[in-house]
């Protein structure tokens, strides 16, 4: 089993030049040596490359992953190479909680967090290890949001780097990575054709933009729904139909949510849908799609792997991909390797930045030069050269 995991990890590494470059840069400073690092990202081949990069820098690494997104073969391969693994494929909720507590018990100094789940847990329930925690690198939009709330309320006690907010992350990972992988995971799970279909994309943030663009590319007629007038206007200018959600879902073949906000799509909306609609979540997962809110719906048994029917009393059955968990990680392998190469290179640089000890408690952005170096390393690997600004351009840009 672990040999498959090893093969998959090594295949991914072949397409991760930015992570390799970041590892080399960070190794020069030696700041990760002997540090306890906890990594709580979706556990699959790409993050395994990141885990092994951190371990190669001399850190003691522990990893945690949820039951529905952990790839068992990868976890086994990591355990074999000496990493402490607190993740089991298919683990149920109670078991995942146990694993998470055991992971926190390793008293990590630095954490790569996803959805701020570990840093929130430590601040709220596990203050016994808060003194050990020196910094957090947060991967997602859904995680940066609560960190900023904590900061505003004066509750955040450690420096956090919002890796998600780096342009090199959100312009690529969220748009191209999640956009491609959510749509593909949904099509893989259902074996459906997208050309000629009506797709509703709920939310036109970066992920929604990516999904809408991929769906259009595959020949769908896309309708966007929004609550933010600026994003809605952007969707309108991008040539998409913009409608209120309750209206849009009545004509949909596919409904994909990408808001990252709970209770976005509910049973009220399902009741308005046509028979046979496919629902997938491209945002944060439950309860972004909340079938408990509104009229009573009934779940049926899986009709294909990762596809379950949900019926209204009035003869309408819709099909939900991955029970409403984020489709790309739960029904597929997550984001593509090359975009995670960028994100994980930034993660590594963020850990290294936190380890300088120069950052105060609060939410910080990655400095521009780090972003430029990470983007530059992937361009270099693709053999792409760009221009340097001339003296005259620099003068023009910096004078008034």
């Amino acid at each position, binding site marked *: 089993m672990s040999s498959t995991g090893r*093969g998959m990890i090594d295949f991914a590494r072949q397409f991760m030049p930015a992570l390799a470059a970041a590892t080399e840069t960070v190794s020069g400073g030696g700041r990760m040596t002997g540090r306890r690092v906890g990594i709580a990202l979706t556990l699959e*081949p790409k993050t395994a490359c990141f885990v092994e990069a951190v371990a190669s820098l001399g850190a003691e690494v522990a990893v945690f992953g949820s039951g529905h997104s952990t790839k068992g073969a990868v976890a086994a391969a990591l355990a074999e190479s000496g990493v402490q693994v607190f993740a089991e494929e298919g683990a149920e909720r109670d078991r995942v909680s146990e694993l998470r507590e055991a992971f926190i018990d390793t008293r990590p100094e630095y954490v790569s967090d996803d959805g701020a789940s570990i840093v929130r847990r430590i601040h709220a329930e596990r203050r016994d290890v808060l003194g050990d925690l020196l910094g957090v690198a947060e991967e997602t939009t859904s995680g940066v949001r609560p960190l900023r709330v904590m900061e505003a309320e004066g509750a955040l006690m450690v420096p956090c780097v919002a890796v998600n907010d780096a342009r090199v992350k959100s312009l690529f990972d969220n748009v191209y990575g999640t956009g491609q992988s959510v749509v*593909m995971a949904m099509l893989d799970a259902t074996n459906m*054709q*997208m050309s000629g279909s009506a797709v509703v994309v709920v939310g036109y943030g970066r992920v929604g933009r990516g999904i809408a663009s991929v769906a*259009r590319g595959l020949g769908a007629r896309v309708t966007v729904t929004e609550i933010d007038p600026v994003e809605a206007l952007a969707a309108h200018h991008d040539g998409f139909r913009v409608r209120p959600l309750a209206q849009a879902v009545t004509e949909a073949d596919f409904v994909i949510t990408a808001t990252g906000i709970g209770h976005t799509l509910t049973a009220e909306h399902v009741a308005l849908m046509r028979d046979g609609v496919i629902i997938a979540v491209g945002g944060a997962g439950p309860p972004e799609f909340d079938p408990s809110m509104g009229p009573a719906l009934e779940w049926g048994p899986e009709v294909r792997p990762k596809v379950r029917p949900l019926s209204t009393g009035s003869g309408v059955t819709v099909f939900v991909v991955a029970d409403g968990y984020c489709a790309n990680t739960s029904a597929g392998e997550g984001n*593509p*390797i090359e975009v995670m190469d960028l994100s994980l290179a930034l993660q590594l640089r963020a850990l290294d930045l936190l380890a300088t000890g120069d950052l105060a408690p609060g939410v910080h952005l990655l400095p521009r030069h780090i972003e430029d170096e990470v983007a530059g390393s992937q361009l270099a690997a693709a053999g792409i050269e760009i221009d340097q600004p001339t003296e005259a351009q620099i003068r023009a840009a910096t004078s008034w």
Partner: protein
Amino acid sequence: MLDGFVRRRLADGALTGKRVAVVLHLEAKTAFLATVLADAGARVVVAGSNPWTTRDDVAAAMVERGVEVHSSRRSTPEVWEADLMKVAETEPEYIIDDGAELTVRIARDRPDIYSRLKGVSEETTTGVARLRQMEQAGRLPMPVIAANDAACKHMFDNRYGTGQSTIQAILQLTNLRLPGKRVAIVGYGWVGRGIANYVHALGGRVVAVEVDPIKGLEAHTDGHEVADLMTALGEADLVITATGGMRSVTERHFPALAPSTILANAGHHDLEIDVPALRDASTTEEEVRPGVTRFMLDGEKPVFVLAEGALVNIAGGLGHPVEIMDLSFSVQALGCHLLASGDLAPGVHQFPIELDQAIATAKLASQGIRLDLLEEGQSDTLSELLEADTWRSRGSQ
């Protein structure tokens, strides 16, 4: 479609008691076609059209429903040949064929059965080309319907079906990203066009390779870069073969490949990427992910082959999307019905335009889409063109 429209058309008893062999990629959608034919009274025998693409669970379910099946997944080419001959032994009257695989074998090995064949309906571009060669050689004693050439087949199945599912399978097998990828597409027929369209739409950069100047010019005019194969291979991150022929990428091309190039095949032949030659030129071969084999060329340059060079969308994915096969198999079922009810002369026949239009009309209606009818006075008729008075009264001069 298949469940409603086609069933109704087949209900006239023309297929009752007829022996029909179905040789297609054996998965859920194909099984449904076989069931529809069996329900219309035909005695159906099924085999897979490729040694690597049969799904055992589907085969088992068909046996349970009383259909005779000779096929299993991961069989060897030898077992597959033997399975095809078992189907031949049932002395089919009609064949729904893929790549003309069964028809050609019966012609070669069982001339006695071949002479009694009453008709063949052919699914693929490759198979139609083979059967036309047979016709030219004077070795086609029965009528053949070029199901592939029906608009409701190739315009949708080959272009959108293979296009979407090929890209889907490649991304799923590798977990790689398409935006920014340089993708060489070898062959710009219906399949190549479809793949190129999706690659472009998803942010990949296409370079098309052709031997036909008209198709090459079409690719150029569609906005794709066009280059010779050696040049294209040298710059490609991903190579997709879609010629329907053999050995498109072979020994002399290997030195041109960049390290870590991914090779995938979307054409009928497993040998379109010459995997045996690649094996000979490599020091090691290892499956690094399910469906992804790494060959070390000359011991130092890794290249990756998907699904062992078999049709990547079927052998490495789920096959065509459901809705597309509904169209394709409607063509096949009606083609088989036409062979059984008509008295077509020997030779390759086009699928009748009336049937093509009937299928498209039924499909549109199932989607709730309405079209307009041409009204009187809207078409340019010969009588108007030749009658000066009418011509002037139209205000054309």
